[in-house]
């Protein structure tokens, strides 16, 4: 099973097992991980599922599309080079993904 390791701004880590094909956002929300809001439910409309991805994991992710790139300019906490919207990250078998959630999403 893929596992996502969520670290919040206080440094608390939550390790959540996800399902192959689910997004990182869904995995977080369904299990009540604080720090991911995802108002629009994953339709790339709200930019409230912003995460910072650990650099080595980031390099392995599929590239983002233009819409995600534009949406990231509107996040509550400013984007950085390792920013992604977690609704666009689909889990695959055996994946270990390390992400940090921003201080706020709205």
């Amino acid at each position: 099973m893929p596992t996502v390791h969520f670290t919040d701004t206080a440094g608390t880590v939550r390790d959540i097992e996800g399902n192959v094909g689910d997004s990182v956002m869904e995995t977080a929300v369904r299990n009540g991980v604080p720090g991911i809001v995802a108002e629009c439910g994953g339709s790339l409309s709200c930019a409230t599922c912003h995460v910072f991805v650990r650099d080595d994991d980031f390099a392995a992710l599929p590239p983002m599309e233009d819409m995600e790139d534009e949406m990231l300019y509107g996040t509550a906490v400013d984007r950085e080079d390792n920013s992604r919207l977690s609704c666009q990250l689909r889990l695959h078998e055996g994946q270990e993904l390390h992400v940090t959630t921003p201080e706020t999403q709205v």
Partner: protein
Amino acid sequence: MAGKETDLLIVGASQSGVQLAISLRALGFEGHIKLLGDEDHRPYQRPALSKEFLQGTVESESLIFRSNDYWDEHNVTLVKGARIVRVEKGADGSGVAHAASGESFAFKRLALTVGARARHMDVPGGDLAGVVYLRNADDALNLKRIAPEATDVVVVGGGFIGLEAASSMHKMGKRVTVLEYGPRLVGRAVGTDTSEYFLDAHRGRGIDIRLNARIARLVDSGEGAVSGVELEEGTVVPAQIVLIGIGVIPNTELAEQMGLAVENGVVVDSNALASDGTTVAVGDVANMPNPLPGAPAGERIRLESVNNAIEHAKVAAYSLMGRREDYAGIPWFWSNQADLKLQIAGLSLGYDSTVVRRDDERGKFSVLYYRGGQVIAVDCVNTPLDFMAVKSALAKGQNIPAGAAADPAVALKSITTDA
């Protein structure tokens, strides 16, 4: 027997009902919460029903708000299939809610998050097989079930749901006709510039859209199923599916039975409290003071959106904890129709001028709405940067001067000023 009394009974396992439970736990509410839904599903998200779920690109499991474990861990009891038909309530806020099944639920405090239902069209042939509505998961499942047999679909109503469903059905290979009663699309939610843009965009993508359409009757195939829609001028548009999306009606029956003030929804104050001072009403069903900063005093509004369900639920959660907190944030809305991603920030209510930013080469379009020179809202199609810039400016009480905004090459963020 009413069973064990719950500390908070939330009637309606909706976006707002779910958010109310979540927000209360986040605020440290320790009492037991019971969340009642009248459907036979775990609480789920509705927006995808007309889009990704209908098209089959997301599974039903993805629509579920929270895992069962989450609810267990947070001491929230979910009850499915409980349709409350009557509430007895005392002055202290406690009472008993009675379900249609005969089951009853005792509570210390009550929240109404009962939402709205699809408005039914009164038309000859309206009960033929193949005439459907789209509000609930069961509606969407039914539409998915009958869709493969149909080649022609008529959508009645050119609002968000109608156009989303029309786009989905078109993508699924159907010949789609949209019949809109009014003179333009989405007339209730966007201005004329945006209506025109969507009209051209949908027609250009192959959807037949007819404005000012007057329906005479739905035609019977001879076997009790719909075969077409006859217009008053005599033509018949073929259809094996007629999807009606002509708006919703707030579910105010319980509030009325309880004697609460009702007027286009359950009337609530700025703390989401109904007229009895103890029951909270939240989301689509609530008629509240306009929460926008700078809105005219006394102006009331009922918003049908995910964002409002969430933000209003937060206000109600504070209220149930004995705290008064203002509605935070700027109302926003979205609608995905084919490759058109519409995002709206703010409320254009009462605008006196607009600025259109349009770049057809890149498929980008946005309209800023102004009242007395101050930007109050924006409609954006495939322009998230504009959406984000206006939403942020509104939240900070800033302005984006109309003159400079007219050039689509200029980034709105760069011309934002402190009002």
